[in-house]
């Protein structure tokens, strides 16, 4: 028989646990309300500081933007957009190391993200780490871009080509530019023009000329301008003149095109071997070149304070001057005798080359045209 008093109902285990559950539920609800209120406040503060950071960054106050984005992240700790903006602000503030650290954190979460890879590539490029920059540029080119992937990849590749050019890595730049041209659809005229321009810049002039030629119908002015430039670089002055003139006719007005056209025309004007001109005209060009070469020789000697009329001649310039004096330029003979024209022009070219060596390349004018002819063999059209 049990003499102990009966346990009150409220001391029963089941009742106790029911009470504990009830208290927990009430406390949980109260905490939920408190937390929700705080989270709303946090969200509002995060948005506020993000907007402030954006404004700071837009107005060029990168340091302030960094602090603002950090504050925004305090209230929205893992927000990838905030983290990205903070990293961009750090980069804008020239805090390369910290920006790299932040982008690497983002990158670790999404190693294939095109934007993160591109930003890292830029930062490493800025930090003089070309190998890492190239690695991230490549990752950006083949990375994941949520919207407009083709455009972003193309832009990343263009930027990479420019980076390679700045790093004097022309072979890789040419390869990337060629890949860019190959990957650009035929219908993307602007893209193809950009690719052709890059090919030209990287020194792959043949491919550049081909690209421009292919675009002549679609975009006559820009393509003709590019093709003219490429032809000029390839010393195809007649083609250059044709393309550049077309460009000018189609409305291209930039001074560089006009200058190239003038120069190409000048080279053609001095070329005694140009097709479809009379023998008299050839003789006249040889005669003009002869006089021009003599003047150039004397001007250069004056600059170098060198006597030319010395017997016997001891220097190259004295030797050339002696030859120049002893050469008889008879207009009739020149018109009749192609060999004489060639021998006079040979002397002219030797004088232009020697004076360029002594006094530097002439920047423009007839001597520049003659030197160009000299360097491209015996005339551009032969």
């Amino acid at each position, binding site marked *: 028989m049990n003499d102990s008093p009966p*346990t009150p109902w409220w*001391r029963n*285990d089941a009742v*106790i*646990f029911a009470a*504990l559950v009830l*208290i*927990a539920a009430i*406390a*949980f609800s109260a*905490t*939920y309300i*408190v*937390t929700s209120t*705080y989270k709303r*406040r946090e969200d509002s*503060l995060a948005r*506020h*500081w993000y907007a402030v950071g954006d404004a700071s960054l837009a107005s060029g106050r990168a340091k302030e933007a960094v*602090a*603002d984005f*950090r*504050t925004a992240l*305090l*209230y929205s*700790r*893992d927000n990838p957009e905030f983290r990205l903006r903070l990293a961009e602000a750090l980069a804008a503030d020239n805090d390369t*190391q*910290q920006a790299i*650290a*932040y982008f*690497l*954190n983002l990158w*670790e979460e999404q190693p294939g993200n095109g934007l993160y890879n591109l930003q890292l590539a830029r930062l490493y490029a800025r930090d003089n780490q070309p190998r890492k920059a190239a690695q991230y540029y490549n990752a950006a080119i083949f990375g994941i871009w949520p919207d407009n992937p083709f455009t972003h990849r193309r832009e990343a590749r263009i930027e990479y080509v420019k980076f390679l050019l700045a790093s004097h890595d022309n072979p890789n730049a040419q390869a990337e530019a060629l890949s860019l041209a190959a990957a650009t659809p035929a219908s993307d005229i602007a893209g193809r023009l950009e690719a052709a321009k890059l090919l030209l810049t990287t020194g792959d002039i043949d491919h550049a000329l081909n690209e421009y030629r292919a675009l002549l119908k679609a975009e006559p002015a820009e393509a003709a301008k590019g093709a003219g430039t490429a032809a000029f670089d390839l010393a195809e002055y007649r083609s250059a003149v044709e393309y550049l003139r077309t460009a000018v006719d189609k409305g291209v007005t930039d001074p560089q095109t006009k200058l190239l056209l003038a120069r190409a025309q000048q080279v053609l004007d001095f070329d005694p071997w140009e097709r479809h001109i009379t023998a008299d005209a050839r003789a006249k060009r040889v005669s003009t070149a002869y006089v021009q070469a003599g003047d150039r020789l004397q001007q250069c000697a004056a600059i170098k304070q060198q006597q030319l009329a010395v017997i016997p001649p001891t220097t190259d310039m004295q030797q050339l001057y002696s030859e120049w004096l002893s050469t008889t330029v008879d207009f009739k003979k020149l018109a009749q005798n192609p060999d004489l024209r060639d021998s006079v022009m040979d002397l002219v070219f030797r004088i232009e080359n020697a004076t360029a060596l002594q006094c530097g390349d002439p920047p423009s004018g007839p001597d520049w045209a003659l030197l160009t002819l000299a360097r491209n063999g015996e005339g551009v059209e032969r």
Partner: protein
Amino acid sequence: MSTTPSTTPPPTATAAVVPLGAQRSAGAEERFFLLLSIFIGVYAGLAVVCFRLTIEWTRIYTLGSSLAITGPRLIIAPAVAGLVVAFLVMKVFPAVRGSGVNQTKSALYISNGYIPLRTAIGKFICSALAIGAGHSLGPEDPSLQIGATLASALGRRLRLSREKTRLIAPVGAAAGLAAAFNAPISAVLFVIEEVIGRWSAGILGSIVLAAVSSVVVARFFLGAEPMFRVPTVSIISTEELLAYALLGVAGGIASLIFAKLIGWSRPILKAMPRWTQYFQPAIAGAIIGTIGYLGFPQVMGAGYEYMDQAMHSQFTWQVLLILAALKIAATTMSFTSGTPGGMFAPALFIGAMLGAATGGIEHLLLPRLTGSVGTYALVGMGVLFAAFLRAPLTSVFMVLEVSGNYSIIIPVILANTIAYLISRSMQPTPIFEVLTRQDGLLLPSMEEQRDAGVLRVEDAMRPYAGPTLESDELAEVAAERAASSPEPVLLVRRGAYAQWFAIRRDTLRSAPPHSLVAHVLPEEPLPVLFPDIPLEAALRRLHGHEVVPVVNRGDPLKLEGVLTLELVLQTYSKARDEPFE
């Protein structure tokens, strides 16, 4: 101020009530206690969530919502908060001074688990105000005390047995700490290492349940992300471990300076006239605010966001070293002025800065050798935790849990061990014990407990000099064999059951002729001991027996020696004269 008066239970607290536990069997109470632990975890988790949010609200309203705090509020906010906190501590909540770890320990060892509920309320308000307004203290130790107090209050309300009421405070402490750190394993280990001091199966289950349930609650409200986002960690080469060893040395020295500074300055401030204690937290706050105003606001508050920044190489090594030094000074001022708040976060902050600085310097000197600065910062946190708080095991798991990164276990163990050994050899008394002694309490030192050698049966037993008699031999023969034995009590072996009996020679002689020894044996066999049993446990089995056989575990019929009460006492006496190192 001593914590004793406030933690002593009121005389009516347990009197005149039948403990609820008394109504249940032992097994039922165990089950009830386990279930109760889950509720303790939930309550503690909810309380800690609210505590953390209150700190954040306070920070926003006192220092402003920007991370880049500027202007005079940097000085005014902590100073005014210091004044308010001092008034509350002096007039309303005198038991809330300090970090909370020692108060929980004293509840366990001095006041049978009693912590007044008022302490939790006071700790909540005062710590939130102080930390939120910029005092250089952390929320973890207060969370631990809040959890312990809630558990203690619940235990009293449910009128648990005395034993369970005592143990319930550490259960709540583990729950509170787990929620604060978002790290259940570390919380369990810390409470075992620092509060209870021993592994006990009875309490371990409850602590684990409470810690896990509190973390689940905290994660529900605050998110499950680890406290720190650590960059990918990889050890570049084994030589890099040397760098971590150096970090261990630096951390050991830094923790030593930190502990010495607190141990030296606290009694000085406490000894000052009582009226000055109203102003000490305010002055400390003003000085810390001035440090912030002069360009180092990172030392204000708990500083977790700055630890994160240090891990991401956002400070130069020079700035990191300055921050570590300033944090030591700021925390010392806040803590010794009597402002309630914890030392976990400051220790982690100092460790993170020191670690990142060491990483930065080593990067500079040996760029080929060293890995990411974030790794060093993380290891540095563990180093300070091990060396300053003297919780080496917790420190390892804490680093792993707060980072969610298990790849750095080897550097963590290496650096922590070195720092712990340096700190221990240069300051034998751990900081928590220094503080309790300054408060006039004599709580058990967990480190000493861990180090204390255990006396075992093999240390006290002696060889048995008499013949081992068999129960199935003739009593006359046995008496003859034992005639010349120096042992007053003879041991008899009953092989079939592997039992041992004690019998006096006289009893043997008085046996009827031709009877077996078995006929004169007592009914109850002797308890048996094994050489590896702790002497404390053996002592209980000796009760009522003149001699107890010590047998081999592999062969219970093989006698290794005997143990007597006298031998035990002699061994204890000898151990007292030659204490264990």
